[in-house]
């Protein structure tokens, strides 16, 4: 039984696997690997890749289900998926709490970082638990899954619109524009809103879903799109390597313009970030043919495997991130850096391989039960 499925667009799996690896590194502050993740070279980061491809995966899987079995069936599947993610998030929240409590007590640092409010659970434990269940309390680094849950619920409601992609695109864009204009956001416990504003990020998710469900024809003037995409990425590089380091080079320009350039509004998915991920997507489509041989090569296989089992790998990555953070907290020398990244990567792959094996097993069991008839048993949408 092969663990990697080949009957699909491997590019999506590969890039999703890459994003998961970046997210793992980015989620361990102080990790040497995080200096090489996407955010160091582009105005967007692994979150954008992950959300776009999550939308793509959802559009493909639930769109197909809707075509075959109708809206209610597909929406029910989507909601079940959101529920799975919600439970995973609550589990990770408990682990987070245990980790903070462990490192604060075992390492005797309670007094030193009182100000940090990491003792928020100690201050108001019952309230904090309730707020966590309501997704209104999202500790630092635990904010992607709540976003994903809400995006899937929004998608469940928007499913029928997939068939009228212009309408879905228009509604989604209008919501995104409303966020840019007014800053409306989901409420948080502290009253400041979510770190990742679902009302803004849904636009990227829906773009992914539309691209998967009804891929638009390739435009005629492809060179122009190539040039525009490269320009966007070059502008990002200039911002990162020149302007961020020497903000005074813009001192003579109007303040408003400067703000537009250097502002890194991740919460509301700043238009520059959106443009960057779309430019990267375009160039990936142009430069990487679906049949590219290297996608099926041995070095690419770990990423493809991770990308095909993204939910378990993602959750394992967050969990392993906690352990990695404890490791780097104890020592951030080269040996620990190497250990954290090698063991973390290996463990994520093991989880991916296990998930793939279980999926294959479930499919085989299903076929056996159906007396050799092929029955589609879907346990995961990737």
């Amino acid at each position: 039984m092969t663990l990697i499925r080949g009957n699909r667009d491997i590019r999506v799996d590969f890039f999703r696997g890459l994003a998961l690896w970046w997210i793992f590194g980015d989620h361990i502050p102080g990790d040497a690997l995080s200096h090489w993740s996407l955010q160091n070279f582009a105005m967007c980061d692994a979150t954008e890749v992950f959300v776009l491809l999550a939308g793509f995966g959802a559009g493909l899987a639930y769109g197909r289900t809707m075509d075959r079995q109708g809206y209610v069936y597909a929406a029910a599947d989507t909601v079940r998926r959101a529920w799975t993610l919600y439970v995973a998030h609550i589990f990770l929240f408990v682990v987070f709490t245990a980790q903070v409590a462990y490192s604060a007590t075992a390492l005797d640092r309670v007094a030193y970082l009182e100000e940090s409010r990491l003792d928020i659970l100690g201050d108001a434990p019952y309230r904090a638990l309730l707020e966590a269940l309501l997704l209104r309390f999202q500790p630092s680094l635990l904010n992607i899954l709540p976003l994903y849950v809400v995006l899937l619920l929004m998608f469940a409601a928007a499913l029928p619109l997939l068939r009228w992609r212009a309408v879905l695109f228009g509604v989604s864009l209008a919501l995104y524009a409303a966020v840019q204009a007014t800053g409306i956001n989901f409420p948080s416990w502290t009253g400041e809103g979510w770190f990742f504003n679902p009302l803004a990020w849904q636009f990227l998710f829906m773009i992914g879903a539309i691209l998967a469900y009804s891929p638009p024809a390739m435009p005629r003037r492809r060179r122009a799109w190539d040039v525009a995409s490269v320009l966007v990425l070059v502008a990002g590089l200039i911002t990162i390597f020149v302007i961020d380091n020497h903000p005074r080079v813009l001192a003579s320009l109007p303040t408003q313009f400067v703000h537009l350039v250097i502002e890194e509004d991740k919460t509301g998915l700043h238009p520059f970030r959106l443009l960057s991920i779309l430019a990267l997507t375009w160039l990936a489509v142009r430069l990487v043919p679906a049949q590219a041989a290297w996608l099926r090569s041995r070095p690419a296989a770990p990423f493809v495997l991770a990308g095909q089992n993204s939910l378990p790998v993602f959750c394992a990555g967050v969990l392993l991130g906690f352990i990695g953070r404890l490791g780097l907290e104890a020592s951030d020398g080269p040996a620990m850096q190497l250990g954290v990244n090698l063991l973390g990567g290996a463990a994520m792959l093991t989880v991916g391989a296990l998930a793939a094996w279980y999926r294959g097993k479930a499919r085989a069991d299903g076929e056996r039960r159906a007396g050799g008839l092929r029955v589609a048993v879907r346990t995961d949408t990737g």
Partner: protein
Amino acid sequence: MRRLPACLVAVSLLSAGGAARAGEAAAACAAPAEFTTPDTALEHVRAAIAAGGPVNVLAIGSSSTVGSDARDPGAAYPYRMIEALRAARPGVTFRLDVRGGRGLTAGEMLPQLERALKDKHYALVIWQTGTVEAVGGMPPDALTDPLEQGRDLLLRAGTNLIVVDPRFSRFLRANVDLDPYESALEQVASVPGAALFHRFDLMHAWVDDGGIDLESTPQDKREAAAVQLNACLGDAMARFVLTGAALPPGG
């Protein structure tokens, strides 16, 4: 180098140690020029010092600034900075007010800042913030917006601003994603007249160089190490201020 005496004082407070300990402290305190050179001129500070004072300084921040986490609030780094400034410029009057409080966000400090500005004109405001927002997972805007409001208010009032970022700690780094908030602080401090003091990186450099490392200091020596840390920070900040005012730090 007026840095040495400040550290000597700190060390003699810690222990009756002799010259050997002083050498250690100086090494622990070495702040490379990149940390003590703001990338903007602090014109209002320069003017106030040139006039012989009084140089009114307001420090606003959370517990490390108000000293609520130490037995003696007077040991907090803003007080140590003023002491170092007085030592460097004996003829000039420096006055310090401290506002803020433990666990306050920048948004909660802004009204305090506005009230303080109504009462007095300051040549310099030190604003330490960011940790509480980062830990609470708040959107970085929650930090940027009040800081920018405060900054514009200060620049209009003829006051220089030094933003101070979170302190380095492995515990904080392990549990909190500081990057978006650090970018927010950099953004706020990227206009002329406002500068960012990189406390996180400076403290990290001290830890890496085997200097002051509160977290690996045994419990019974931690308070003494905290006193030394504040002296070192205050000293580095004084040099930062004097360099920004285009004055030689040594007097």
